[in-house]
């Protein structure tokens, strides 16, 4: 299953909920304000680094660039909507609003 997250992890707890339900190996797609999770050096960085051990994590590059986030946690794949669609071809999708 592909899990998608579009809310800031600093104001919402959706990322934590997602991680509680996501199965080992399930990909996670960060988009909209969800991409703030990739900010390197932040207080939630450790959660993301831990999550990367179990899940491939993607972030929509257009959303990352729009927000000026240049220091991205290593191991997160920046990608476009073609990649989002490709993942949705392979997986059911559940959005954690």
């Amino acid at each position, binding site marked *: 299953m592909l899990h998608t997250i*579009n*809310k*800031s992890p*600093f*104001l919402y707890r959706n990322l934590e909920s997602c991680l509680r339900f996501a199965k080992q190996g399930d990909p996670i797609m960060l988009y*909209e*304000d969800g991409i*703030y999770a990739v*900010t*390197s*050096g*932040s*207080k939630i*960085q450790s959660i993301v680094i831990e999550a990367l051990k179990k899940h491939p994590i993607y972030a929509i*590059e*257009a*959303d990352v*660039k*729009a*927000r*000026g*986030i*240049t*220091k991205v946690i290593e191991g997160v794949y920046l990608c476009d909507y073609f990649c989002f669609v490709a993942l949705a071809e392979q997986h059911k999708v559940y959005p954690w609003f």
Partner: protein
Amino acid sequence: MEEQKKTKIMFVMRKPPHGSIYAYEGLEAILIMGAYEQEVSVVFIDDGVFALKKEQDTKPLGVKEFSKTFAALEDYDITNIYADRESLEIRGLTVDDLIIKPKLLEASEIAKIMEEQHTLLPF
């Protein structure tokens, strides 16, 4: 005398830009109020600090880039611009990451300034 009559209005910016319109429509309100010769101030706390992040490039997303407009607030006589130090720290940011240099304050100092306002506008 004139000074006494000014109303203290503070915009409290807590939302990040682009995912929702609050930062943008908040800025539109700041610009209008800036023209009314009141004592307008702006404080960035929580995800609001992201609105000031340097190097925002919204072209690939196809939406308006407005962070640079915050840099123009001085032209509107809005010079009291604050940011919460801890909000930056939590997000791995320093003042060097921001397009302007807001006055960095502790939460307790911000609370004190909020208390002095006539009106607080949340965005």
